[in-house]
């Protein structure tokens, strides 16, 4: 039953994406009046380009960017708003802390992959502390003990070992990414899923599927609840480039190896 519904959702999404890309094509060439060159053009400036990122699939990416805008507007944001309306702030914070704590598993595996000893110990310490003293991750006492959070993922691991980011890629639902980070996302999801299936914490109930589905859904809602970003909200006509540049730059800076001090 669930699988049928899921297939249905996927089909609707594909249809929506396709219709959006076609709509994009249909709107060009409407105007029949002859074009007149603009007063200023790119040729008159002798300067370096800036905020530039490799983006050979810009047309596709802009379509996905727009797709995500509509998904946000008609699905995610209304859901997040209802969630915020019905859930007390204290509870929202506990839920976020809980998922943050689960995320430490991903941080730990990836800091191990990068052979970062101290960081791995810190992350392990955080996970153990918050899972016990922090009552199953509902609170974050580790930060007040001086154990700082290190966000890691497989995309960063690849970057650490020298893989370039590859072209920019906007993923449906997930948003800004790159070829490398998309691969990383797949690996991280696989590892998390593998660990989860091996433990199968709700297997004993004989009814684990709906529980797992609820946990995943709530995770998604919580993630979006914690992101203040809204597509096109800045109103800036070049927002796509600003987002692309900042995503790329932040990832590039954070995944690089530290340089030796002079």
């Amino acid at each position, binding site marked *: 039953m669930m699988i049928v519904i899921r297939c249905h959702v996927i089909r609707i999404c594909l249809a929506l994406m396709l219709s959006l890309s076609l709509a994009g094509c249909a709107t060009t060439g409407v105007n029949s009046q002859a074009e007149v060159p603009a007063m200023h053009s790119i040729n008159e400036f002798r300067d370096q380009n800036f905020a530039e990122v490799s983006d050979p699939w810009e047309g596709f990416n802009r379509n996905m960017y727009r797709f995500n805008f509509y998904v946000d507007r008609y699905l995610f944001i209304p859901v997040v708003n209802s969630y915020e309306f019905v859930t007390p702030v204290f509870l929202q914070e506990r839920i976020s802390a809980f998922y943050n704590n689960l995320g430490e598993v991903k941080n730990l595996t990836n800091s191990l992959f990068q052979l970062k000893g101290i960081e791995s110990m810190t992350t392990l310490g955080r996970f153990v502390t918050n899972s016990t003293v922090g009552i199953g991750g509902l609170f974050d006492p580790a930060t007040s003990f001086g154990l700082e959070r*290190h966000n890691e993922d497989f995309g960063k691991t690849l970057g650490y070992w020298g893989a370039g980011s590859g072209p920019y890629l906007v993923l449906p639902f997930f948003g800004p990414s790159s070829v490398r980070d998309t691969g990383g996302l797949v690996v991280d999801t696989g590892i998390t899923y593998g660990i989860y299936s091996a433990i199968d914490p709700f297997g004993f109930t004989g009814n684990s599927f709906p529980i797992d589905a609820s946990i995943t859904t709530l995770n998604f809602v919580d993630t979006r609840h914690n992101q203040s970003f809204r597509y096109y909200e800045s109103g800036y006509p070049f927002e796509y480039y600003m987002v692309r540049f900042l995503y790329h*730059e932040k990832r590039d*800076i954070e995944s690089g190896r530290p340089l030796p001090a002079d």
Partner: protein
Amino acid sequence: MVYLKLMFIAACFILSPLQSHAADGDYGYPIPGSYEATIIGTPAALIPPLPAYIRTRQLELDIFPDRKKPPIFFHDQGLLCTFAYQKQKAPLVFLIGGTGAGNQTPRLLTMTKALYQAGFHVITLPSPTHSNFIVSASQSGIPGDLTEDAVDLYRVMEAAWNEVKGDIEVSDFHLGGYSMGATQAAFVAKLDEERRLFNFRKVLMINPSVSLYNSVTRIEELLQQIPGGAKKQGIFFNRMLSKFSEFYRYGNFVAVNENFLYTIYTEKLFSRPETAGLIGLSYRIGLGGMIFSSDVMTNSGYVVPKNRVLSPTDSLFDYFLVSTHLSFYDYFNEYFYPHFLKQRPGLTKQALIDSESLRSIESYLKTSAKFGMMTNENDFILTKEELDYLKQLFGERARIYPRGGHLGNLEYKDNLAYMVDFFKK
């Protein structure tokens, strides 16, 4: 994933060091430098406690129902305003954002929360220079004329009021604005004296320009401090960026977060001219957006070929580079002034510049008791002479702080308390 806040900060980067300030009065805002204060704003610990959630609704106003919007602005489905409302009868404050500000700009949200906490209804309005306003609420599509902007703003306020008046009870209307929004507030208040729809009881101007042209000249001068001048901003941008990322990689940082940005400031990564250049550059990046949106709306053929219809998936990167390389003077001389000359034959540039100034309505400002004005001794958008002019114009209605740069201290606890108190009296 993406942090809009980071977007704002990264558009500016950061600068030189915290000195302990001389004890001038009891004013505790800590950052002495004008540029530094402007970029860093108010350290989190010095912002007063504000409610995490307030009762708000986003308004999406259809100001010109017959307007057909260009396909690239498909996401623009009306003018966005944020409406915060009390359950009981209360005064309503309209707030106008500064240059480039949207209705949810952090500064506007902080002001909204502070006023909401004190029992006011609030409606925030984007700046007429913001794309959403140009596309959905500007009659001409050409922002920057104080008289026309005031008419546009008034129309929006009227529409917003019609949208909410069935839901709330209002005792009085107030008006406030910061930066260019403060200067516009003065013109809106004057218009209200004729239209009498709101009869604003109090009007607060925070860090206003006296003359828009002069203030923008101050900011353009910041960009002229970069090597090779303003037209080499791409080279400058890339050089600052590599400085920024190298600094990260040498240090032992956890992430590009506030701690990292603060270290950039304390370690003096950027020199004073570089800091100035970064402020000028972030302003240019904003101005470029305004020029592009206006050009698309008016089909003027300024940066986009005339009659070209851009689709939502077309690359805009060349337009981005072209628009951000244009100065305010280019916009004024080649686009803004010719537009008004066509409407008012014989108009001189100087006459147009003079009309974009508080001096053009000074007799009104001098006598109206409803005004209040807050600014800083070291706000770089004012000359010394203009600061003196404001002091003399507003007399006891002026509150001048010893430091804070341009808007850096707006969220500081004393400033917010003064603002709330002003509307309460």
